[in-house]
């Protein structure tokens, strides 16, 4: 995507030549455009909102006793990854290139990342705005993974994994695809807003962990119902809303490309909502709300890498297919293979992201974006090959790295909670809270403020341990 944008910048210049502001920009390059800046900052806010939204989307799908642990994972990630990002993450991902693989540490602690534009990435907005916009992507990506190991992962293990994974997996891949000098970017792989960087690697990593730590107790023979579907729908609605910042904002300005990205994003989400619901209606006789909510996410994921390069009608096709493909992957494939991807992080993000990345190679058209490329359907098979390479490389890298990280961690710490804790629910056993206490039927007593050492604590706190 950044490739497209670098060139997009020049392209816009052509388009803007008449405009004095642009001329001024020529003269004093560090001139920011208020419209573009407003657009990117608000977009960054929209993307931030997506992570709490994801917390609700996931939280509603798990069982009552685990709702907080599921929400906590996404929410806490906003904290740790944002700090990681400003301290060194951004530098690793977007800093000066080291052999096409990763950024160096020149920008550590945002050193040199100021409020005037960095023309390499976005010539009309403050560099800090670009940095924080990208930071929101770095936050939501590991949050997506949590859907795969929900309801059974230890919080401590989750926290360690997240920081390591963000550093060793996300930052490098982001550099490959979006960083100046990144090898996939130079190869011409198109990923407008993160189909590869965000969705494929999170989905694949989730699947690997899910298989490594095993199924939830009772999976397959017990009834596991979403405990609060309206919460999931609320999450989906906020995700849809935030996704406009995610995709249109990736144009890094309020321009034609942003408008196109906005439109195709909405259209694809809508089409996938319809196709998932219809598919389910045909196969089970019921058009479900969870299907509608899942469908829109599938459509949003699918269009993400393509948003800046395809036309609205192509988006209808991408969405319709994306909805059906993801539906089949979570209902048929998952059932057949029998892994426990609790909330379908892989089924929706991994599969949908891969479909989207390939679809970009099919439907991309220079007629939509000069800075983009033509896809297979527009006579350029090469682009499709590029996309395949991008998908394959990111899947491979994410899978291997995740496997290694978990393996090594498991040598030094527990990854999964005990069976007793899993039965009691992670909310009480891991966080000492319950999601709801509706009935006022609680008896008990406040314990005078006392400091307990963490270790002994959990043990003494559950009758089951």
């Amino acid at each position, binding site marked *: 995507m950044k490739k497209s944008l670098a060139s997009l910048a020049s392209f816009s210049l052509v388009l803007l030549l008449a405009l004095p502001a642009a001329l001024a920009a020529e003269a004093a390059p560090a001139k920011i455009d208020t419209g573009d800046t407003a657009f990117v900052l608000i977009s960054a806010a929209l993307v931030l909102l997506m992570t709490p939204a994801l917390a609700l989307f996931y939280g509603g799908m798990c069982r009552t006793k685990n709702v907080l642990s599921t929400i906590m994972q996404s929410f806490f990630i906003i904290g740790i990854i944002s700090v990681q990002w400003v301290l060194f993450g951004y530098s690793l991902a977007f800093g000066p290139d080291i052999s096409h693989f990763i950024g160096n540490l020149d920008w550590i602690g945002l050193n040199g990342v100021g409020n005037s534009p960095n023309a390499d990435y976005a010539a009309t907005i403050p560099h800090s705005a670009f940095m924080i916009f990208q930071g929101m992507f770095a936050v939501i990506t590991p949050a997506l993974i949590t859907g795969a190991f929900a309801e059974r992962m230890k919080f401590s293990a989750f926290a360690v994994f997240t920081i390591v994974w963000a550093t060793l997996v996300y930052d490098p891949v982001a550099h490959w695809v979006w960083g100046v000098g990144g090898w996939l970017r130079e190869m011409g792989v198109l990923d407008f807003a993160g189909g590869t960087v965000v969705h494929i690697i999170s989905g694949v990593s989730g699947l690997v962990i899910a298989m490594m730590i095993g199924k939830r107790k009772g999976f397959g023979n017990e*009834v596991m119902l979403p405990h609060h579907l309206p919460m999931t729908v609320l999450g989906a609605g906020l995700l849809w809303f935030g996704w406009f910042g995610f995709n249109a904002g990736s144009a890094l300005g309020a321009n034609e490309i942003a408008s196109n990205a906005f439109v195709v994003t909405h259209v694809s989400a809508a089409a996938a909502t319809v196709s998932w619901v219809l598919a389910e209606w045909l*196969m*089970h006789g019921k058009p*479900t709300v*969870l299907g509608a909510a899942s469908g829109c996410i599938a459509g949003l994921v699918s269009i993400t890498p393509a948003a800046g390069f395809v036309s609205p009608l192509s988006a209808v096709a991408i969405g319709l297919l994306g909805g059906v493909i993801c539906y089949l992957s979570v*209902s*048929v494939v998952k*059932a057949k293979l029998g892994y426990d991807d609790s909330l379908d992080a892989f089924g929706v993000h991994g599969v949908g992201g891969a479909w989207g990345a390939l679809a970009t190679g099919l439907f991309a058209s220079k007629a939509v974006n000069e800075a983009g490329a033509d896809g297979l359907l527009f006579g350029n098979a090469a682009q499709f090959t590029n996309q395949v390479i991008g998908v394959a490389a990111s899947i491979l890298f994410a899978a291997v790295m995740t496997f290694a990280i978990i393996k090594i961690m498991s040598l030094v710490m527990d990854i999964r909670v005990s069976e007793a804790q899993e039965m009691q629910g992670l909310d009480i056993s891991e966080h000492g809270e319950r999601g709801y206490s509706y009935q006022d039927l609680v008896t008990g007593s406040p314990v005078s403020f006392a400091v307990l050492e963490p270790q002994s604590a959990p043990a003494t706190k559950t009758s089951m341990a």
Partner: protein
Amino acid sequence: MKKMTKIEIITRPEKLEALKEAMNKIGVTGMTVTQVLGYGLQKGHREVYRGTEYNVNLVPKVKVEIVVCEVPVDSVIETAKTVCRTGNVGDGKIFVYGIDNAVRIRTGEEGDSAIIDPADIHKLK
């Protein structure tokens, strides 16, 4: 102290309102209602989540507990039967128990007078 009986009516939630009113008519002054889940001949329903179907076989029911003395037990049973019957599987059950004693906490009254509406108390005399 007259013999007291507890009648436990387990039936469909949507019948609760009607049942309550019918009981009022025959002079039942109080009852205690509990939300329960029932299992029996009545099938549950099927739910679908992301392509996985579940048979959910506990059916929501209400349990209405009525302790009576004056009011003849049979009339309570008869009334409950007529009000709650739909003829479909799942109408529910009525269970009858003996009870040793009853106390009205507010007044400390024991036995029948504990459950009789003071307004009707004269009837006892």
